[in-house]
């Protein structure tokens, strides 16, 4: 496509690198920004720069927060259960159900050697340390990882790593798409599947 200026072209190229945005949409967004007040664009770029610069991950649960210490330690939660999820949006989805009051642990991904992601690239070691350091206070680990092949492998691996620690391991009902498909999961269904979670079996 021919663009009216190289400035537009550069903007389109950058915007279209975002997931789900093609060149046509990127051009529409760029032209939209040009039509608006200049302040709108500078606020946007400032917010994005700040997002990138100031975002921290809690060193305990790996949820996105302002500091490396989030509310996971201070807020009044059920300290006996910990829910293991792939990413921060999953935490939000599960919190929104209002059915879960325990702690979270964000893995930051699932194990997939063909994508170059090994066990050391996801936060499994901190999960094991967290549980063993709780001296028995954490009694149940809920695996809420998506039911893909990589999710299964990761769940299996985690249970192997938790062997020897006296925690109960459970999993939420299969077929509940979480992680990446949040918008399709209604809160009622997700909430119900957390209540009706069952013991994890390595069959």
């Amino acid at each position, binding site marked *: 496509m021919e663009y009216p200026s190289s400035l537009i072209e550069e903007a389109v190229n950058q915007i279209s690198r975002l997931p789900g945005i093609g060149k046509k949409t990127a051009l529409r967004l760029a032209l939209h920004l040009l039509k608006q007040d200049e302040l709108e664009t500078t606020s946007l770029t400032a917010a994005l720069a700040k997002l990138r610069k100031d975002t921290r991950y809690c060193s305990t649960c790996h949820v996105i927060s302002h500091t490396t210490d989030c509310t996971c330690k201070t807020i009044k939660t059920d300290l006996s259960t910990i829910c293991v999820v792939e990413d921060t949006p999953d935490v939000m989805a599960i919190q929104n159900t209002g059915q879960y009051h325990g702690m979270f642990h964000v893995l930051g991904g699932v194990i*997939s*050697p063909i994508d170059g992601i090994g066990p050391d690239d996801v936060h499994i070691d901190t999960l094991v340390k967290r549980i063993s350091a709780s001296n028995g206070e954490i009694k149940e680990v809920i695996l809420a990882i998506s039911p893909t*092949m990589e999710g299964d492998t990761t769940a299996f691996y985690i249970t192997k790593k938790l062997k020897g620690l006296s925690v109960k391991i459970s999993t939420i009902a299969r077929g509940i798409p979480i992680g990446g498909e949040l918008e399709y999961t209604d809160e009622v269904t997700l909430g119900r599947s957390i209540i009706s979670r069952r013991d994890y079996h390595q069959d």
Partner: protein
Amino acid sequence: MYLEKLTLTNFKNYEQVAVSFNPKINCILGLNGAGKTNLLDAIYYLTFTKSAINSIDSQNIRHSENMSALVGSFIGEEELMVSCGLRTKQKKIFKVNKVELDKMSDHIGAMPLVMISPDDTGIIKEGSDARRKFVDGTLCQINKAYLNNLMQYNHQLKQRNNLLKNWPHGKPPDKDLFAAYDDQLCKLSKMIYQVRLNFMESYKPFFLAHYEDISSHKESVDLIYQSGVSIENYEKLFKENLQKDMLLQRTTMGVHRDDFILRMDDFLMKKIGSQGQQKSMVIAMKLSQFDYLKSKTGKTPLLLMDDIFDKLDDLRIEKLIKLINGEEFGQVFITDARPDRSQMLLEKYSMTANSYLVDKGQVTAI
């Protein structure tokens, strides 16, 4: 079920053709390179959602065009309008009765099909993967769960092999991580093994009967399923193989190593079979694939025979013609570069057939 009408737009060497077919026998005649095989490949496309020859969709679009369309009207208990749209740099769109398919695999097996082509002797001559491909290609047409298990198995195998390949030299293996793959692979292996074993039980009698019928030789043939899964303590041995696997950087046990051994008088077919015997054997394998699919689905598969007369002597050609002309067979497509031979055979057996001449990208009924 039979293909009543086929319309091609910018598919391979065809710019625009529309052909109506005979529900029984169709002879597609023309010089070598005229595009006879491409016509059969279009039919294959509509049943398997991909080409039998070139698996890269965009390369099946006519040269210097950017889109291609294939439409087939199939008549059976229900009428099926199957269409496939190909575009360069885009996902293909496959529709059945105007409803787009979510997954291509949903369509596989809806219309069983058997294709016999000159390259088939690879099943005998090549490595075990050619034979597994043949067996899997048959099973996937009738068993969705099998197709699904096989896809999962191949995916997890790829993961495990990748792990083996990239494991840092000298670092002891993470036993728990390998256990995660080993458990899943062993579980899937057992399910795949069981289906292949059951397949052999029903398939083998068809095969032995067809070989005896089609071959004029006195030799005895056999087909034996060989799988590491059948051995005792399979799962234990699989896991004990880790050291060896690390060294070789690939998984050395599992159903991806299965073989279907073809024997003649207690020798390996690929070692001693003559060309004629090998051809008879391949045709027997395909005809029994036909019988097997028919017995499992209750549907009569379409039969595509690409350029096979050249490879057979007159006696075997006549046997084959008599067979496909019988009631057991449904719609058949035959390509031949020698019109005189086909015409003679059609007349001799007073067959209900249509003939077509393929020339310069046109298909004309004659």
